[in-house]
């Protein structure tokens, strides 16, 4: 995947029973013992603390050993984990109450100061990671980071198990955004923030309070976990878990041979893996989607906002026609083994804020309709070369860009071009070649004038707030699409309703429905589909369940049936 290619941060498994039911569940009584192998297809870096990690490679490993105060439910809403929370009246103060008796892997108890410590680390001026956005809303955090204060004003440790934060401004999605992974303060005693990321405390003896603790790390290759007997939900059934890096190409073979018990199946091997009799498959829509963006203009760095001054795609009808021209289902089936579902708005299907499909245009594949719309908008073939000219009668070509990330990227791009050519649009691969990830984003960042349409992908958050990429002031507004109405709605979506009696969720839902309708109609990018993650688990591994963002739910309940 590209774009926000890192998995969103809130991947804490928690206790809910999945709605997924797979074939026959184990009827037997759980048996303790055994080791399961969890595989991943890229080497991990070994930055084993949530405050510092960067990629999925480490976060998946961390999920076996670390947890946060809160968790996220299958419906993408925050849930209590080892702590409960409470807001004050005006929603500016948030208090966490930690359950007593939760033990770190070294036997110490999880305390409020551990949470405080984590916030201080992240707000530190030497903190090298990317998580400051998750504490910046705390009052005084910015000042602390800038060095103008030596304390973060908004943090108060009430007692060992209670901690309160005050935020600068009340926002509706504070719980989704605020950092809730504690760091064991004693574990890091004496280490400067700048050195933490390289310290043995992170690299060799990482600390968490999850069901498994680290036994052995082979850098870049595997991590062996063993059961943590004092786990707060009771000891896990498995003796241990091995987190192992494998070559994606070998996934199906390793799954078949049982060398790997569970992993997210590479989508290109889905047909193979599907056939394997020894596996249970869990198919979950993932938090992300792919799209084809139109280039509307450029980012004006001085003004700090995007300027939609490219005339080419200003005509909405053209965009609609190009969307209708695309055989999205065909692309999905042909190049992604059908693993995904079409989408027409940038929200995950499992989100509470997602507008029902019947309220929006679903842009079916309809070349005839596409041609019709084009003709109406004045795009007709005047010189008889088989391609339409623009309304002014001049040659009309469309450059298309895509990343060369997977082996199917090339035929997919070819097919998209074909689709457009079929309705008379002279679409070409920009520069005749796909671009690698870096060049692709470099060109977008630099507002390369040859970039006209591009196939990208985004990660989605659990919270529906689209800011960060959809506001006209966002540097990451890749389409360079500025729309006042959209800006208004996005901003309103994170405000509390003026009518305080109104349910906040309902209020936001209304606003987001309206925003989705707008985006669906304006269509600044053609939304393609939301992929389906497939997790494959050996049938001997019991109690496995998955949701939209993880298969590592309740790993302490996994057990092996021989």
């Amino acid at each position: 995947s590209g774009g926000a290619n890192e998995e969103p941060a809130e991947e804490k498994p928690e206790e809910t029973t999945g709605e997924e039911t797979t074939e026959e569940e184990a009827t037997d009584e759980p048996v303790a013992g055994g080791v399961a192998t969890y595989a991943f297809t890229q080497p991990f870096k070994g930055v084993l603390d949530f405050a510092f990690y960067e990629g999925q490679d480490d976060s998946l490993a961390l999920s076996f050993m670390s947890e946060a105060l809160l968790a996220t439910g299958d419906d993408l809403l925050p849930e209590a984990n080892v702590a409960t929370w409470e807001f004050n009246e005006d929603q500016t103060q948030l208090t966490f109450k930690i359950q007593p008796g939760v033990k770190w892997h070294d036997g110490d108890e999880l305390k409020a100061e551990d949470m405080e410590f984590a916030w201080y680390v992240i707000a530190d001026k030497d903190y090298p990671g990317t998580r400051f956005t998750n504490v910046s809303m705390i009052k005084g955090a910015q000042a602390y980071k800038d060095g103008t204060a030596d304390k973060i004003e908004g943090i108060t440790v009430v007692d060992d198990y209670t901690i309160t934060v005050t935020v600068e401004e009340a926002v509706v999605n504070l719980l989704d955004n605020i950092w809730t992974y504690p760091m064991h303060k004693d574990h890091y005693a004496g280490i400067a923030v700048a050195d933490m990321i390289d310290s043995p405390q992170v690299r060799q003896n990482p600390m968490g309070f999850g069901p498994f603790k680290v036994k052995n790390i082979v850098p870049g290759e595997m991590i062996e976990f063993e059961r943590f007997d004092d786990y707060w939900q009771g000891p896990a059934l498995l003796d241990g878990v091995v987190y192992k890096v494998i070559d994606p190409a070998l996934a199906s073979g390793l799954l078949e041979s049982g060398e790997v018990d569970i992993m997210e199946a590479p989508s290109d091997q889905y047909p193979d893996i599907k056939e394997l009799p020894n596996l249970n498959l869990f198919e979950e829509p993932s938090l992300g989607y792919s799209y084809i963006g139109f280039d509307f203009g450029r980012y004006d760095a001085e003004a700090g906002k995007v300027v939609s001054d490219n005339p080419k795609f200003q005509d909405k009808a053209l965009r609609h026609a190009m969307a209708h021209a695309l055989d999205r289902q065909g692309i999905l089936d042909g190049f992604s083994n059908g693993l995904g579902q079409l989408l027409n708005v940038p929200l995950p299907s499992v989100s509470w804020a997602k507008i029902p499909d019947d309220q929006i245009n679903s842009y079916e594949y309809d070349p005839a309709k596409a041609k019709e719309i084009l003709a109406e908008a004045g795009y007709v073939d005047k010189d008889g070369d088989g391609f339409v000219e623009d309304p002014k009668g001049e040659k009309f070509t469309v450059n298309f860009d895509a990343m060369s990330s997977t082996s199917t990227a090339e035929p997919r791009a070819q097919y998209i071009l074909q689709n457009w050519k079929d309705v008379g649009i002279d679409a070409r691969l920009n520069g005749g070649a796909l671009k690698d990830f870096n060049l692709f984003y470099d060109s977008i960042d630099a507002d390369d004038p040859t970039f006209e349409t591009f196939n990208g992908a985004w990660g989605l958050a659990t919270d529906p707030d689209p800011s960060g990429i959809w506001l006209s002031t966002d540097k990451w507004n890749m389409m360079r699409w500025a729309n006042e109405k959209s800006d208004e709605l996005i901003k309103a979506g994170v405000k509390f309703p003026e009518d305080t009696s109104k349910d906040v969720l309902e209020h936001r839902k209304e606003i987001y429905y309206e925003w989705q309708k707008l985006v669906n109609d304006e269509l600044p990018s053609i939304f393609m589909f939301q992929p389906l993650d497939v997790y494959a688990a050996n049938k001997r591994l019991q109690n496995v369940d998955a949701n939209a963002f993880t298969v590592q739910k309740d790993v302490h309940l996994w057990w092996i049936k021989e």
Partner: protein
Amino acid sequence: MEPVTNNESSVVVNKQNTVTKGQSPWAIARRKFVRNIPAMLGLVFLLFITFVSMFAQYITVPLEDVQKVNLSQMAKEPSSEFLFGTDKAGRDVFQRLLYGGKVSLTLAFTITFCISVIGTLVGATAGFFGGRIDNILMRFTDFILTFPFLIFVIVLSSIFQGSGIMTLIVVISLLSWGGLARLVRSKILAEKENEYTLSAISIGCSPFKVITKHLLPNVMSTIIVQATLLLAVMIVVETGLSFLGFGVSSSTPTWGNMLQEARSPDVLSKKWWIWIPPAAVITLTILSINFVGEGLKDAFNPKSSR
């Protein structure tokens, strides 16, 4: 009884004034080569594959149609309709193989040509003039040779990605002429020791003439043999780079790009017709090039008797 190269044997003392032409070393090499069955088979195969690749558009459909993705016929097994089946995007493997050959072979031939030209030029100049010129040129050659080849091609091709196969040709050529230059130089140095060089100078040939008329024809056999082997290497380089994703852009069919599909185990194990043909063609091509090279080496070797 045919004339033998044995010095004493084939002197034709021709009393009449009829003119019988002698056999140039080239002609002898050609005759020896033609009799070398593996080499001839290799050459025939190579010519065949080159021919059908270069005229792919006349043999099958135009490139645009070959490139056309067809979702209704994906990954079809070989049949009467599709000689080698279709790939995962529903494209005819056979047609792609032809077009792939066109690119792969053009690339290999062009690079080999460039390398030969640069290598010969540098090697011959350095070897003939010696002294300071030699020193400078050879230091530069060392410099080029020091670059870990694969590593540098990867870096360079990620800088120039998407700028077409021209860039790839330039990049690879510029990085790999060093070996040949050294070889040519040492050969020239050896040939220079031969008295015919002195003899050429003593009859008033200019350095240019000495190099081009006397030295180069004598090292030409080495260059040709080496170039043949380079040709094989370059096919491997192209396919290898494309296989890793650092070669020719995947939107152009090449043998390497076709082979890349085999990285997915599904294709590797179940859809053999997608990767076996390019793998086989690559192997056969290299094999035949090697046979040709071996044959040439033999043909040019005055000691060999065949």
